């Protein structure tokens, strides 16, 4: 399978608990890590809320699966694009986003942020470079 490395981009556009899309998208992302492909994630529109800080689902009876995003770095998934317009439109800043990090093996395992803020226009260019874009 390693003969072809493709660029996979998972685009998350929906709030985390109103529907099952966010949870089931994360499940695909974690599986994709086993295939040695180039994997990136995008959070835009209400998808921003999937990686918001301090999620508490106790009152709603939903499972809070947000801690799982922190494991992405261990799966070598360290390109996490956050669309800046989506943040602004919701009155949020990068301070409201979870600190998702990875350890850079090419830099003595230094801990680095996986979060890459991008504008809507930059995101369009990034999407253009992908082989597979799966959005939900």
């Amino acid at each position, binding site marked *: *399978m390693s003969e*072809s490395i*493709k660029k*996979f981009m998972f685009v998350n556009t929906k709030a985390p608990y109103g529907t*099952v*899309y966010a949870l*089931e998208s994360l*499940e*695909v992302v974690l*599986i*994709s890590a*086993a*295939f040695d*492909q180039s994997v990136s994630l995008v959070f835009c529109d209400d998808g921003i809320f999937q990686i918001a800080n301090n999620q508490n689902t106790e009152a709603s009876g939903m499972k809070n699966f947000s801690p799982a995003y922190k494991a992405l770095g261990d799966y070598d998934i360290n390109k996490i694009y956050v669309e800046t317009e989506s943040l602004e439109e919701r009155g949020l800043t990068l301070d409201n986003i979870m600190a998702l990090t990875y350890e850079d093996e090419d830099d003595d395992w230094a801990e680095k942020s996986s979060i890459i803020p991008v504008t809507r226009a930059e995101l369009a260019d990034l999407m253009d470079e992908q*082989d*597979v874009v*799966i*959005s*939900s």
Partner: protein
Amino acid sequence: MKFTLLINEGPYQHQASDTAYQFAKAALAKGHEIYRVFFYNDGVNNATRLAIPPQDDRNITENWAALAKEHELDMVVCIAAAQRRGMLDADEAGRQGKDADNIHPAFRISGLGQLVEGGIQADRLLTFGD
């Protein structure tokens, strides 16, 4: 061209499965290849063999089954999404100690790796759903 189709919505509630079916039919008629059809999210419900739509309506599951038979399509239902929604084949029902199964034999149950592999092998992966 070689396509993998991803269907994320259930039958009748949403047009995604119908659109994917029409696309698959048209693509095959033009000589293209469908590498795999993968059913995820509520899309797994397209695989039920127990649906009884009104007689003057289309039968989505049987449409897929007939197309799969004609073209030897590989139609895969995500096991994790299926289990969550009570979609089981006979093997899985036995393993889980359930007294019934409902997956149409034209479909097979497998893991999400089949979706990723479908994306790797195909020239295009097309998503049908919201």
